[in-house]
């Protein structure tokens, strides 16, 4: 049975480092599939104006398209050209929760994410996602520095 690794990407440089580590592991394992996951932070319990609600479907489509075009598709093309077996997806929701969910569903052996070294809100968010994932994941998690 092929080993599956889940890699959380966010379009940042640290995310690339997580992918590099996944490639390294994949080479060592041999029969291995890399699953790229890009998560758009979203909560069904947030508050929106009526106009935002009416535009929501359109926005969702745009968000998915953008994430696929800018992050997932280029990464997949590179992986495939380098001879790796890989697939990818874009999801809306809580990043830590969804990464774990995908890992369980795909029977993955490991989740690989990056610990952001950047400052600012994005880094703070990514950091807290990592911490939450490490604490709650059902499969082993590797945090790449």
């Amino acid at each position, binding site marked *: 049975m092929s080993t599956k690794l889940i890699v959380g990407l966010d379009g940042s440089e640290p995310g690339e480092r997580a992918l590099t580590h996944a490639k390294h592991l994949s080479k060592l394992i041999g029969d291995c599939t890399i699953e790229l996951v890009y998560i758009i932070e979203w909560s069904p319990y947030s508050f929106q104006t*009526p106009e935002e609600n*009416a535009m*929501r*479907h359109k926005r969702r489509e745009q968000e998915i398209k953008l994430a696929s075009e800018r992050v997932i598709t280029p990464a997949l093309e590179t992986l495939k050209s380098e001879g790796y077996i890989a697939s990818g997806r874009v999801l809306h929701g809580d990043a830590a929760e969804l990464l774990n969910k995908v890992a369980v569903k795909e029977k993955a052996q490991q989740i690989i994410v990056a610990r952001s070294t950047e400052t600012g809100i994005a880094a703070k968010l990514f950091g807290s996602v990592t911490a939450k994932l490490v604490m709650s994941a059902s499969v082993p998690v590797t945090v790449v520095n």
Partner: protein
Amino acid sequence: MHFNKMISGAVVSFIALLQSSAAMAEGSIDQTVNEAFALATGWFVNLIFAPLPGTSFPWIVLWLVTGATIFTLYFGFIQFRAIRHSISLVKGDYSDPDDAGEVSHFQALATALSGTVGLGNIAGVAVAVSIGGPGATFWMILAGLMGMASKFTECTLGVKYRNEYADGTVSGGPMYYISKGFKEKGLPGGGFLAILFSIFCILGAFGGGNMFQANQAHAQISSIVGDYPGWITGIIFAVIVFAVIVGGIKSIANVTEKVVPFMGVLYVAASVIIILMNADKIGWAFGQIFEGAFTGLGVAGGFVGALIQGFKRAAFSNEAGVGSAAIAHSAVRTKEPITEGLVSLLEPFIDTVVICTMTALVIIITGQLTTDPATGLYLIGENGRIITADGSSGVALTSAAFGSALSWFPYVLAVAVVLFAFSTMISWSYYGLKAWTYLFGEGKTTELVFKVLFCLFVVIGAAANLGPVIDFSDAAIFAMAVVNIIGLYFLMSLVKVDLNSYLSRLKSGEIQKFKD
């Protein structure tokens, strides 16, 4: 061309109105404008709020309560049968994870609630209990419970017959379900009713959903910081509203949309604390509510007076049957329109049965309504209202009731009133816009014209003392209910088919929870 002429004509009239309101702000009250407007629209206001012959009971209130009762019976007390399932839907138990990122049931409910929770819950209830006595609370709760069935019917239809455009955006509401539903059933007059509804909706959005809110927000702010010209509040509000609805500054809307629910929770929490502080009086307060409901306890008009006030306040506060919520709920993308109807029925429950009741209980329990120690009956003033502890009424009465237990709360209440007014304006700007685009077509320019007019009305509403204009816009909101409920009577059989199908699939296990 014709449209452009109409718009320029409208703009000229608004400038005239603005000038007149500016004159009023300076202290020289422009009686002429008021009187001319009252003369032109008075018949309409009198027609909508006309009492039933020989009573003081406005027929429009009976219209709303009758509608609510018919929907309750027709759908077999759906509001009680399905409330647990409604809560399950809001929690997302039945939401497909693949639809993550779309508008959730919770979001649609929260958005619709921010449009209805407002001054009605704070000021309106105070008026109701000061005229109708504690007994009004009983009838208010009853009307709130019945209204849940009206909301269920209109919001299901809102989703079922909305328009979905190629770019993924949606437009829905009574004007869409009346025109499409009537066509589907082969009934005549759908197009006419839809246009009529849209006209009333636009007027209601400019008036009750805008000018009234701006006016009351200004009154509240000036009661705290001292008197100052209303146009200042109006321009500040208009700029913020403009930034949100024209500039698309999401951050302001996001802050409001987050703070408003927090304020709502804080309001209920403060009420519960005050009620618990007076725990020994809870039994007495409920005794007063039940006794007053059937005897009136000396209020003007006896128990009928209590009933009118209770029914009126519930109907005015939760907007069940008005059709506004159907516009808000139609944004949800669901394969089952019934689910949105089931979620929306929680709205009158939260708005009226919970929040309005809290206001009433706090006023009663803190002893704001004075009684005659000898007879136990309420003391009635010359104006027919119960004499309150400090002589206040409306928002001031609610504020005094909360302030008597928590001295700092009137300040929180002032902030809450302003925020509730703002969120109600944002919601109604959307309802009005949807009616506007139904009449004039979708398009960036048409939308912009409406939005700019909407902002102008904010300034007018805050600056002017346009009593007749506000009366007219209130009448327009209730005129929406006349058209909407006629539509609902003709279309409710369509809802029943969907409801029966949904409930049987739920029972058979075909529809299942997604969460473990």
